[in-house]
């Protein structure tokens, strides 16, 4: 049994401890704020396999399969619902692009299909069919409650003996050569250290700071925090806009009904580079901009009341694909999820546990594709589609 430190108490750091504990490892999890405070609790809840490249499609197909069983496995209601993703095309060229994506997705077993607007309207009763020609529809995509998902992992992990600590900030490592031998951390103003056999950096937007503690360059994985904002309405009756509905050509704008309280979450690609890693200030341009799109997607939304707007980070890499793998001898990373961390967490959590504990995993994760050193080599992947 080895002792593994996981840094970052979002869902990407929250899933591996449970998986590692199942493999018999001892785990200590560090979160400098409260659990989920970084990106997880700020996400739009969506889960999809509709990507445009093989690696992401295969990873997400597997992840969705894990999501389907997660509630039972963790013994906690996480409100996972397969309510689908509906992408909408506004031009013939886009319809053709959708068809190509659908072929690729079908090839790996993702059951996306092209649907007409009548069917789309049946799925989303408040949809404006007028501006759109067709939809790419995968009923197996879905959503879950980010808060409950993370807590389900943590509760289960604690039962398996994981030491999960919040308000505890990692401040440095002790190393022998490249190998990390201990983690130094601060809690309630007190500095302590713990001996470890391996470290997983799951700090997403904060990951470069952790890499630096391990003696690496901050830019070895260039992650930039972009402020992504959401606007949400008051709770509404379910069934009005259950799938994530997105016309990508409208600046990636989307709406999705929260699976828990029924409020409609509205997002868009109106992004701002964060001024710092504490810059969560919502902006006025987003508030108006996102709703301009939202009422065109679903005009009856005009009568709903907005109750809040908030911001979180898309921790973006240059190709919008995460960095997943081993960085040093016993130092691993899963970060830079560029907005996809929540949906990928079940697969990535399991894959990382396998990699760290056994050096391998049965998860269909293309290690090559997500290789953390690819940026240093100047090898960028095709940009992953970034929605919800």
């Amino acid at each position, binding site marked *: 049994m080895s002792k593994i430190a996981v840094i970052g108490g979002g869902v990407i750091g929250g899933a591996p401890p449970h998986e590692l504990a199942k493999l018999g490892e001892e785990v200590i999890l560090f979160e400098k704020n409260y659990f989920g405070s970084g990106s997880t609790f700020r996400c739009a809840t969506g889960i999809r396999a509709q990507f445009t490249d093989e690696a992401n499609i295969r990873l997400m197909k597997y992840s969705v399969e894990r999501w389907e069983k997660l509630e039972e496995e963790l013994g906690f209601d996480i409100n996972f619902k397969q309510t689908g993703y509906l992408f909408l095309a506004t031009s013939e060229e886009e319809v053709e692009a959708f068809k190509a994506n659908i072929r690729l997705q079908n090839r790996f077993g993702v059951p996306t299909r092209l649907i007409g607007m009548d069917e789309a309207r049946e799925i989303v009763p408040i949809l404006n069919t007028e501006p759109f020609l067709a939809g790419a529809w995968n009923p197996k995509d879905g959503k879950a409650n980010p808060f409950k998902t993370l807590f389900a992992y943590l509760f289960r992990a604690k039962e398996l003996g994981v030491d999960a600590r919040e308000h505890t900030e990692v401040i440095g490592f002790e190393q022998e050569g490249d190998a990390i031998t201990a983690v130094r951390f601060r809690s309630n103003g007190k500095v302590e250290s713990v001996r470890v056999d391996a470290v997983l950096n799951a700090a997403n937007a904060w990951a470069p700071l952790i890499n630096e503690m391990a003696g690496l360059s901050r830019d070895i994985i260039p992650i930039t925090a972009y402020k992504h904002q959401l606007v949400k309405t008051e709770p509404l*009756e379910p069934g009005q806009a259950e799938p994530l509905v997105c016309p990508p050509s409208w600046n990636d704008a989307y709406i999705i009904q929260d699976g828990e309280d029924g409020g409609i979450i509205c997002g868009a690609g109106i992004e701002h580079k964060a001024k710092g890693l504490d810059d969560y200030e919502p902006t*006025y341009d987003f508030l*108006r901009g996102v709703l*301009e799109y939202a009422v065109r997607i679903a*005009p009856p939304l005009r009568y709903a009341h907005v109750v809040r707007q908030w911001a979180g980070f898309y921790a973006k890499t240059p190709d919008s694909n995460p960095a997943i793998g081993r960085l040093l001898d016993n130092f691993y990373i899963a970060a830079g999820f560029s907005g996809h961390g929540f949906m990928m967490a079940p697969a990535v959590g399991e894959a990382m546990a396998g990699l760290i504990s056994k050096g391998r995993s049965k998860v269909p994760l293309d290690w090559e594709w997500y290789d953390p050193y690819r940026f240093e080599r100047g090898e960028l992947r095709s940009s992953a589609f970034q929605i919800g």
Partner: protein
Amino acid sequence: MRLTEHPVLRFERGREVTIYFKGQPIRAYEGETIATALHAAGIRVLNYSANEKRPRGLFCAIGKCSSCLMVVNGIPNVRTCITLVEDGMRIEPQHGKARLPGEAKPPEFKEAKVVRADIVIIGGGPAGLMAAIHAADAGASVVLLDENPMLGGQLVKQTHKFFGKREQFAGVRGVEIAKILEEEVRKRENVEVFLETSAVGIFQEGGEKLVLAVRNNRELIEFRGKAVIVATGAMEKMIPFENNDLPGIYGAGAIQTLMNTYGVKPGDKVLIVGAGNVGLILAYQLIQAGVEVKAIVEAMPKVGGYFVHAAKVRRLGVPILTRHTILRAEGRDKVERAVVARLDENWRPIPGTEKTFEVDVIALAVGLRPSIELLHQAGCQIKYVRELSGHVAVRDEWMETTVRGIFVAGDSAGIEEATTAMLEGKIAGIAAALRLGIADESWLKEMEKAQKDLLEFRSGPFGRHVLEGIKKALIGGVASE
């Protein structure tokens, strides 16, 4: 249930109109809210709650608590306590979460109206009005916005005369002070007033403060200024007890609004929870409106408000049960009874001491807390200060918060009195004009006088307690215990 005569107030009702509740016609008057008209018609249950479908009625009457959501003309989630009646309106109770109408035209995107001024003042109660008067006199252009259809804030509901010194309006009824201050504000050409206008957010845009607001629930307005004074007052606290969400349980302020603003009796028999100034004053106002007050219960071993307010209601026969609390409300769809009990030294109800009051209204007067949402949202440092009754913005002697250019005054800076709110408003108004370099140095003296008056007002046992709190709320102030 409508009041026709009152020892202090005169009710001027608007044109009579008809609204329809579940298809049944109801008489209403222009200028009153939907919830008021329904209340006057004896309707208590306005909706059934989101998850458990519990009956809910009017509670806060100021658009904050979500207890009065109804479907109006087919549109769900309308806050009927702040939406005015219109002839022919169709009103339905809402059952749980709402469905949006199936069809709608997407609204056209329009640029918002922009209003510029040196100083934007949010809240037209005693603090905001005094801030506007003094900022304007010091040379600043001012916009003053308030969410209500009238200026004066809580003053307009106060039939009692105020304390302090006569130059601070002592001996004048709250409702009269509101008129005097409004007249002063209206006289000044450099003050523009926006009523029924709610500030919903403060953004920093370059060197400018953008106060985003909504007028009449319809129009988006961008108020752009160099300084902002937040004088948003207070909101009532709630306490948990069994069935505390039953229709017929109201915040004290809601009853004052119904009774003193709209001239509608809240009910026939009332139990009041809380013997602070609000509860005591409310009891007196209820008696003035011809409503029977069965008792006032107070968990503390003594009257928390001014003794003289207690004596006023005692001599009219209202018992004050100190060291008592409410255990539960009873009733099917609305309050029919209230059960109270005596508390022991550890604040636990003593079995066997239960008393039941047959009442149709339970008024909660369990304290106010500062309305700091805008200050918090705008990024001002917030601190819990018990003596000021909740979370408040940290500020300096000039009432400027930790966000430069944002000032605070009145109850939103700490629960106190209208008199101190007026003095703080004066300080904030002058301070903002000084900070912007608009006011000349002579205004510094004027501000110092207000500071001195405040200190004098606060020199008694009540004020000393507040002063302890203010020490903690000052930038670099003493640490909390």
